[in-house]
């Protein structure tokens, strides 16, 4: 238990700067928290020795006057980011024992900014899921429980380990990746901030691919300011990623002016879906009221294609995944199950190595790309994707950002929804459109539903993370979300 672990990332940064504590003390406190978070199963690999070494190096740098933007800040890394010399699994059996000889661009940038690695967080296998129950390393538990109900809840997914670790005060921030909502939905479920930047803002190099045209690395933190600081270190053009955007990285923290006077906030009527719980609806209304009170101007907009985003996503993402996951064949890394022939080895390896959800998606993806079906499925989905992007473009003629709920419900119990894939997929109904359009979006904890956190989402124009963060911060202040999860690492 430590006072230190309750600091925000920004407070920890300032405390280090004021020499109230050292990076080593901070790392030691967080190492303890990581160890204490064990019941959540949020980490696949903890790296306490490395954390202490990196922290010592950070202290030395600080002593010599070199101070990066994340100097001495302990962070957790989703185990989808390759980390040199550290087991990297994508939460899949098929990557058994894989130790990358390279460091992902995003994590390399974090370390270059002075950050300290606590470990690798659990996730849905290959980031495919919305509940973090598909991990080969076991489900992650949400640190929150419904009052009066002791059943463990899902943290959301796929970045469930990152969300749980940050919520339980076992890290100041964590990296996540968002393909259909995998940063924002777990952020909402765990009561933290999750930011999916614009496509191309953070490099995908060294991030294990799920669906290349949809994968967005981004930060997960406890405050909007923390997300701004972390994004500043993660973002930037990477010549090793052909889809990385060659645009300058602004000072995101400086964008948090609190001033949103005159800003037009779009309220999409299509997000009022059937069966949406009253609490979600009323929280959304509160959000509208808060922003209006802060001087923004709510405008009703229409995003007609919203309903079709999920089915389009469930063609595009599995199609790309089926191809991206072909490299796991037992030849160059990871698991291999020997066989009588080459194909026998391939088929046994991939059957043993991939879990049920991954198999399902690889098969769907293979099917929709196969001869005779390409036009009906893949091409159709890409056209719908174009219409979704056009919807947003038209909406942004009328507004400067868009406010929606992040998820249609709060966290559910582990095991719930698991026998109906489509019901599970519907978790991402509000998050998927921004992935398909590549737009920046943040989820900010805004209230409780039956004692469980709920997030509101701000979607912005491409490369305008500044507005997204600025509005997010205003929302955060108005919501004044101070609730704590029932599980705090080291305090139970």
């Amino acid at each position, binding site marked *: 238990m430590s006072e230190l672990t309750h600091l925000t990332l920004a407070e920890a940064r300032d405390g280090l700067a004021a020499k109230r504590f050292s990076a080593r003390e901070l790392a030691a406190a967080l190492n303890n928290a990581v160890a204490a978070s064990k019941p959540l199963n949020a980490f696949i690999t903890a790296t306490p020795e490395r954390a202490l070494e990196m922290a010592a190096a950070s202290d030395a740098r600080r002593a010599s006057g070199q101070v990066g933007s994340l100097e001495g800040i302990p962070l957790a890394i989703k185990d989808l980011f390759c980390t040199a010399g550290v087991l990297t699994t994508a939460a899949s059996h098929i990557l058994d024992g894989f130790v990358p000889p390279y460091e992902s661009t995003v994590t390399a940038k974090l370390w270059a900014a002075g950050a300290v690695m606590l470990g690798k967080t659990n996730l849905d296998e290959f980031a495919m899921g919305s509940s973090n129950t598909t991990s080969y390393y076991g489900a992650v538990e949400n640190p929150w429980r419904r009052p009066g109900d002791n059943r463990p809840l899902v943290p959301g997914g796929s970045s469930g380990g990152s969300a749980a670790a940050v919520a339980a005060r076992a890290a100041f921030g964590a990296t996540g990746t968002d393909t259909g909502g995998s940063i924002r939905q777990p952020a909402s479920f765990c009561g933290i901030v999750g930011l999916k930047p614009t496509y191309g803002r953070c490099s995908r*190099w060294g991030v294990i691919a799920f669906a290349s045209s949809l994968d967005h690395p981004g930060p997960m933190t406890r405050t909007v300011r923390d997300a701004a600081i972390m994004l500043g270190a993660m973002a930037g053009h990477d010549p090793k990623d*052909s889809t990385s955007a060659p645009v300058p990285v602004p000072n995101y923290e400086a964008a948090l002016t609190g001033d949103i006077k005159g800003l037009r906030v779009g309220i999409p009527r299509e997000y009022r879906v059937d069966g949406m719980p009253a609490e979600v609806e009323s929280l959304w209304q509160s959000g509208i009221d808060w922003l209006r009170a802060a001087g923004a101007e709510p405008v009703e907009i229409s995003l007609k294609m919203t309903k079709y985003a999920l089915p389009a996503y469930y063609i595009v993402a599995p199609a790309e995944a089926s*191809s991206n996951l072909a490299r796991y064949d037992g030849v160059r890394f990871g698991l291999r199950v020997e066989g009588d022939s080459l194909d026998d080895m391939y088929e046994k390896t991939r059957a043993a190595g991939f879990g049920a959800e991954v198999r399902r998606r690889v098969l769907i993806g293979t099917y929709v*790309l196969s001869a005779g079906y390409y036009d009906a499925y893949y091409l159709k989905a890409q056209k719908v994707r174009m219409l979704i992007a056009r919807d947003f473009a038209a909406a942004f003629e009328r507004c400067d950002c868009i406010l929606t709920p992040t998820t249609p419900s709060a966290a559910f119990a582990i095991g719930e929804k698991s026998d109906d894939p489509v019901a599970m997929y519907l978790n991402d109904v509000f998050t998927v459109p921004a992935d398909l359009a590549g737009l920046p979006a943040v989820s900010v904890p805004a209230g409780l539903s039956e004692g469980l956190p709920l997030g509101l989402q701000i979607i912005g124009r491409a490369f305008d993370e500044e507005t997204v963060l600025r509005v997010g911060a205003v929302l955060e202040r108005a919501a004044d979300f101070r609730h704590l999860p029932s599980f705090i690492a080291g305090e139970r």
Partner: protein
Amino acid sequence: MIKGRTGDWEVVIGLEVHAQVVARAKLFSGAATDFGVEPNTQVSTVDAAFPGMLPVINRHCVEQAVKTGLGIDAEINLHSVFDRKNYFYPDLPAGYQISQYQQPIVGHGRVTLDMPDGSTREIGITRLHLEQDAGKSLHDQHPRETYVDLNRAGIGLMEIVSEPDLRSAEEAGIYLRKLRSILRYLGTCDGNMEEGSLRCDCNVSVRRPGAPFGTRCEIKNLNSVRFVMQAIEVEARRQITIIEDGGTIAQQTRLFDTARGETRPMRSKENDYDYRYFPDPDLLPLVLDPAWVTRLRAELPELPDKKRARFIADYGLGVEEAGVLVAERATAAFFEAVAEGRDPKAAANWVIGDLFGALNRKGVGIEASPVAAAQLGGLIDLIADGTISGRIAKDVFAEMVETGADPAAIVEAKGLRQVTDTGAIEAAVDAALAANPAQVAQYAQNPKVLGFFVGQVMKATQGKANPALVNELLKKKLGG
């Protein structure tokens, strides 16, 4: 046309040539492209498709493809797309090949063939696209295992697809040689078939003259012009026999067994692949700047067809010898250096006859010629100004090939300068006549003995006597 049991058959052939792009680094990674190095020593984690690795295209490879497109008179597509071709094979690490499917970088073009009868024939090019090479599977290293070397994996290839315009094995051979010549002129592919820099798949079908196309079979991975021609010949005969026996041709991918001289179907699942092409989401469409393409067009070297026409027009060479001289850019350049300011016919004869002969014997190419162009030119000058005879020149040339010395130096050192002093030659003539009275007596009946006396005089002068003077004097003295 091939004669079958039941009549004539026409062979229809289209070639898919895989030409390795000349570049230092691979198409989508920074690994080297050298041939013949230790296994897996030129492999980046991108080539080996490690998790999270991403492709970034090599600008030079793009440039090489555009140059090649321009060299075969083709449309350059300013917008092209890279797709993934999905299939499992151990030498294809990602489980897909990055290739171009519906929107290649180069569209329709053509290659002109110079036929043996002096005519020309135009062969259509359907397309040229950029793609990654696969690695190499070695099946003969272990009884139960296949070994995989990824050095070649990811090297840039240009796949050049011809229209089904070729009508015989011979034409296919001429086409391949011509295409290779163009690629080498452009410096976009070294054309080395033994090292696999140029590989060929042949689509072969047969039909009755004038009938619609028959069902084709594809013969994969032929790595010499000779094998291409043999395989086509054998495959066409196989198909004709099947049809004439009342059978039908199954569309198939086949391999050419060079030892047995026959084609056989591939046993692997090559025949039931479903490649599931889709645009590679790790890459964006390749958009070319038209001004850049224009500049590349302007910088294009003179290609064999143009050069041949110029050699014929400017140097007065025959069609055939011009064709021989332009086949390789280096040969043409060598010839032009020799011919500069000299008799082009003589230059052509020396290059095609003596020099090619010498290079052949030594087993080296023109780049490694022991005789430099300036030296050969010097030799021709020595003949032209009467310093040596054409006969002596052959000896001097042989010496040049062996030692690499300058012709003038050889002539001086060996005292080969032609004797034009009438007195000295007259003495030798007199001596020869005096020594052979019997032959002198024969001369009236048999003027051919003149040759005998020329030989005697030349022998006596170690070949240095001016042959014209020797003839003149002998005739005068014998006839006189």
